[in-house]
């Protein structure tokens, strides 16, 4: 194809992409490149950055045991929270998809934790819920169960955070719901005629038709989990305590940048995280070729 005809074919795409392109070149590209540059500097945000080459990365990989700890915590969190959250969100979305009275209010209810999750008020609630003599342990005590120290025992704290993350399943649920609604009903009607079992309908119709949305939720929840900040920051008082068991990568990064005047090092950390996320996202995209099929690509 000649360049000319390529251009002719391309122009509608670029017209629709224009707002994003303007935004990208005007507002996004400089911050991204600047942070990449800062990753190779010693920068305290007060004085001008000083080029130090690979020193930040060298320190990170060779000496910084908290960097490795934060990686470990973050990976564990991603692995534990993402699949569980997605499965939970899908189940609830399917329950809420059809045949329930007052479904709008149920949806609002199930979305509530996600709405409240970011609020400063709820930060105080977590403490009252999960304290040694808090609401949850008091409830467990009724059944004669001695609850653990949810937040102050490093063996439990991360799991407590995982539970909280799963509990805030509202966003993927809503997206699943929208996805379920987009599945043409004639497929189910046809399956009904063939007397397909519910599980057959689920695996033969729902999953393949929902695959693009499942894929979206998987990728986005994974990215969000890698970048997860607020929950751990709030619950650990911004430090990753106890004993760095809640030292999420971004919490560590934030402290380096905004508490200890190491914006350059924090940028280096940020780029390491970016590369990790990009690698996992690339893997997800690669596997999607085998299980995600789009309507507009069907031959």
């Amino acid at each position, binding site marked *: 194809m000649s360049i000319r005809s390529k251009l002719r074919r391309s122009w509608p795409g670029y017209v629709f992409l224009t707002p*994003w392109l303007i935004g990208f070149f005007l507002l996004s590209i400089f911050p991204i490149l600047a942070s990449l540059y800062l990753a190779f500097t010693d920068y305290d945000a007060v004085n001008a950055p000083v080029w130090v080459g690979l020193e930040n990365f060298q320190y990170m990989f060779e000496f910084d045991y908290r960097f490795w700890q934060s990686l470990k915590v973050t990976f564990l969190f991603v692995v534990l929270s993402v699949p569980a959250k997605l499965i939970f969100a899908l189940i609830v979305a399917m329950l809420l998809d059809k045949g*329930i009275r007052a479904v709008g209010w149920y949806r609002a209810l199930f979305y509530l934790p996600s709405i409240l999750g970011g*609020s400063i008020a*709820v930060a105080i609630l977590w403490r009252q819920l999960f304290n040694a003599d808090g609401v949850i342990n008091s409830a467990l005590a009724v059944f004669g169960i001695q609850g653990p120290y949810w937040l102050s025992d490093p063996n439990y704290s991360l799991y407590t955070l995982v539970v909280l993350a799963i509990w805030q399943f509202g966003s993927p649920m809503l997206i699943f719901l929208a996805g379920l*609604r987009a599945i043409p009903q004639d497929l189910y009607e046809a399956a009904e005629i063939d007397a397909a079992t519910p599980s057959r309908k689920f695996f033969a119709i729902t999953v393949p038709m929902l695959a693009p*949305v499942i894929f979206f939720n998987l990728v*986005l929840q994974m990215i969000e989990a890698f*970048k997860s900040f607020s929950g751990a920051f709030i619950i650990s008082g911004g430090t990753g305590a106890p004993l760095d068991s809640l030292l999420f990568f971004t919490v560590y*990064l934030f402290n380096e940048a905004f508490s200890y005047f190491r914006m350059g090092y924090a940028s280096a950390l940020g780029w390491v995280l970016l590369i990790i996320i990009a690698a996992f996202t690339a893997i997800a995209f690669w596997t999607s070729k085998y299980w995600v099929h789009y309507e507009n690509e069907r031959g």
Partner: protein
Amino acid sequence: MTDATSTRLADLTAVSAQLRADRAVRAKRAALLKHVFLIAASFVMIYPLLWMVASSLKPNDEIFGQLGLTPSDPQWSNYTSGWNALPVSFTNFFWNSAVVTVLSVIGNVISCSFAAYAFARLEFSGKTIWFALMMMTLMIPYHVVLIPQYLTFLQLGWVNTYLPLVVPRFLASDAFFIFLMIQFFRQLPRELDEAAMIDGCSPFKIYWAIILPLSLPAMTTAAIFSFIWTWEDFLGPLVYLNDIKDYTVPLALRMFLSQDSVSEFGQMFAMSVLSILPIILFFVIFQRFIIRGIAMSGMK
């Protein structure tokens, strides 16, 4: 028709009626079970809200000493005094939040659907690279670009205005929504565009008359998220707004608490309860547009 066959037929009818009745009972039981599960789960979901309302009615000296949900003497005054507790009244903060949020929702839905349409339905050179770059903006940890971004807006002279909070929304800065819409747009059958193309429709016409209407659930979802996330965002307003008159609600809520002096927890909870009402309202009104799609399957 012999007698025998007619009896058999009658039997069959009776049996099938019985089966149907059974199925109805079972369906009812299943529905009941579903409701029991949903109600139990709902309690777990609604507890924080109940707790927040209860705390908003407690005096400061009761919030941390007692865990119960019933305030000894409901302090409705937390609502009235909280509304005016800060140097600027909450009328102001709610108005600011509403302006920023409504503009952001509009900007996100329009600009992101534009970009998503390009990525999902149109062919153009360099598409893969642009897509990868767009995904990259989603992956970079926000705190790393916070300062360079601030410097950018400072250069533009936008600091201390709403522009840094609103203009990027009109420039499709939130790749989450682009990617979300892409996934839904790609699910629409190819034949739709092709038929429209043959009828002489322009790409814009296809976007406007076919893709958008058929993607109502996705657009609604994006609008709901956009509303909630903008309404709750505090890092943007924190960095870009200096003047308390311009503050949004989440920023104002954080001003009730102090580590080295008196915190007004009761008032903070009261205003927190009020601050989520617009979100719930928006959600309940708009979720009804997440309707069954009218698209037919392409694999008939």
